């Protein structure tokens, strides 16, 4: 009797300890899952939904590490042929209608990329969800049928982040972030990111549909769908050059 009580107390405290230690670990694994491979090729469709209009944009994207990436727009016809190149922290754009390569200045980087809710800044300047926050497991919930940890991220003092809090739902099975909520410092919801349609693609399990919903502007959203994706493709650094920016197809 006493032994069993002791055992149960011990066990619960051990699991609690293990869980507390794991929150950061879980986020770190999830972050790695999102970044992952050495190189990739993908075909993506982005739908920008506003209360009064909607448009969609398709593009091909090549990337190598986090430093190099090249994006080529395939539709709509008006924008077809535009390309964007990112090397380290710098970004260039090629516009075939004016036949010019433009280096994007800092002010341009902060505008919405192709009119979406994503900013160029988001693409370039991902502050690490691992380094800048303290993590704690707030519970376990099901999201779209998947068992998830609900993890609360609170920014470390002096960390240069604007959020007051983030909540992530990470699947237990694959360490995928299915849902993230961003809160301001007054704990009001600012935006929600959702991931759906978990599939096995090219040997990796990933969500293939993403949604971004700003909380202040009901009716606005951006939907990103991965149509094709290949990992660890054979691609040289020289592919990511200003020269290739104007020639890529």
């Amino acid at each position, binding site marked *: 009797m006493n032994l069993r009580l002791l055992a149960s107390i011990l066990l619960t405290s051990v699991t609690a300890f293990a869980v507390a230690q794991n929150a950061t670990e879980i986020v770190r694994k999830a972050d790695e899952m999102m970044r992952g491979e050495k190189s990739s090729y993908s075909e993506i469709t982005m739908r920008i939904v506003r209360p009064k209009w909607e448009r969609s944009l398709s593009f091909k994207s090549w990337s190598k590490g986090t430093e190099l990436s090249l994006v080529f727009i395939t539709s709509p016809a008006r924008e077809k042929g535009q390309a964007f190149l990112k090397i380290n922290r710098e970004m260039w754009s090629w516009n075939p209608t004016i036949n010019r390569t433009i280096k994007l200045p800092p002010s341009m980087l902060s505008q919405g990329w192709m009119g979406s809710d994503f900013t160029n*800044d988001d693409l370039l300047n991902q502050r690490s969800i691992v380094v800048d926050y303290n993590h704690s497991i707030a519970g376990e919930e099901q999201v779209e049928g998947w068992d998830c940890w609900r993890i609360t991220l609170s920014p470390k003092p*002096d960390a240069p982040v*604007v959020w007051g809090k983030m909540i992530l739902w990470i699947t237990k099975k694959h360490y995928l972030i299915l849902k993230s909520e961003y809160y301001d410092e007054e704990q009001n919801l600012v935006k929600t990111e959702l991931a759906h349609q978990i599939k096995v693609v090219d040997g990796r399990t990933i969500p293939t549909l993403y949604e971004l919903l700003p909380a202040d*502007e009901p009716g606005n959203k951006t939907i990103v769908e991965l149509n094709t994706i290949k990992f660890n493709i054979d691609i040289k650094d020289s592919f990511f050059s200003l020269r290739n920016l104007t020639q890529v197809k």
Partner: protein
Amino acid sequence: MLLSLSWRNVWRNPTRSMVVVVAVALGLWGGVTTMALINGWVKQRIADSIQNEISHIQIHNPEFLLNEEVDKTFNFDSVAQALSSADGIVGLSGRLKVFAMAQTDRANSGLVVLGVKPNSERSVSGIPNKLIMGSFLEGDFKTPSIVLGKKAAEELKLVNYELTDSIAQKLSAMELRLGEQIQPLVGRRIRTRSSFMNALRAELEPALFNHYSETLADSCASFRLNGPVVLTFQTPAGELHSAMFRVRGIYRTSNTAFDARMAYVNFENLALAANINPNYVHEVALLCKDNTSVVSIAQTLSTTYQNLKVRRWDEISPEIALYAAFGDFMGLIYIVIILFALAFGIINTMMMNVLERYREFGMLMAIGMNRLRVYSMIMMESVFLTLTGGVVGIVFSIVFIKIFAQTGFDFSMWAEGFEAIGYSSVVYPDITLANYVLVTILVTATGVLASLWPARRALKLNPMQALRVE
């Protein structure tokens, strides 16, 4: 004798003369007032831009001016000592100038960030006195402070819309029904202007909504002081660095473009974050005693500091110097156009005058008045006629300009458009004595020119034939 004769001739047909006098007076009143408005406008723009934006003289590392790169600094101590004791310089501020991406929880925007020492900045710039909310950079805080322009704060979505109790009470006092209908909104905080408008539209009846919504939105807007702003900028080593700042104050100038772009932070904070030696600066801004001493001071400075680029305000912002010259010229063009149109009216009147008085001219010539005298008499009549109108018009405009120089001429109906291009919406007309003299000369010249044709007509008369005209 000829003078008084001409003066009396002008008033032989008072109605006809008065028509011309009034036309000239109104034309000149309009012209001179326009001239004064343009002049006052431009002067204000120059004063505002020197005071808030560019100061009298700026000193840079010449390489910084090419691309405004963050590593092109120069040693502040090498110039500060000499400058602060120099004659005619009343203010001196060493600044860091960094291009940064600003991120808040709801938006992003590009900013030019000036790192300044609050005390010295106050001696050069009017911005610390242009705050509409919060305070300037003085005061010790754990997180560094940033002061933003109103437009930038709006773009970064650092605005809340909240209908407070006191506003609601004032509204009830103003219009009872409005106060009642607005009740459900009291105390609610709304993030964007459009959703605030939507909330209003839901509560108010359409007539009240159309009438009050814009004013309500303006008076309910409050800026989120202490709101977080993360600035990302390049360090001299070429790396990107992010640092957290909190909003302490919001300023507003008459130039919206400036408000959208310039942000102020403490010099030490920026130097530390950007990893710049705190003895080095990108820019030194100087304020001189007055606009006239600038040229000579700039001259001396550029010979003293050969390795630095010293620029006057009209070199930093040539478009403003251009406006100054342009403003005077524009006013003159208006007046010349108005006088040209009036000249036809005067010619008409004088012509009627001359045709009516054939018999009289014949008589005058017959009793020995020579042609030159007849000619000058008609010319003087014309000049008197125009000048009377001119004097009345100028007196009117002096009074008008004097009044509006005190109260200001309010264009706030179109304020947004004006302020978008950097002009204040309240204009204080201003005109120099030289301009009045110039206008008087132009009016006299118009009188002379307008009399040429009618007078020539009179000269062609044969006295004997003219006497027989009935």
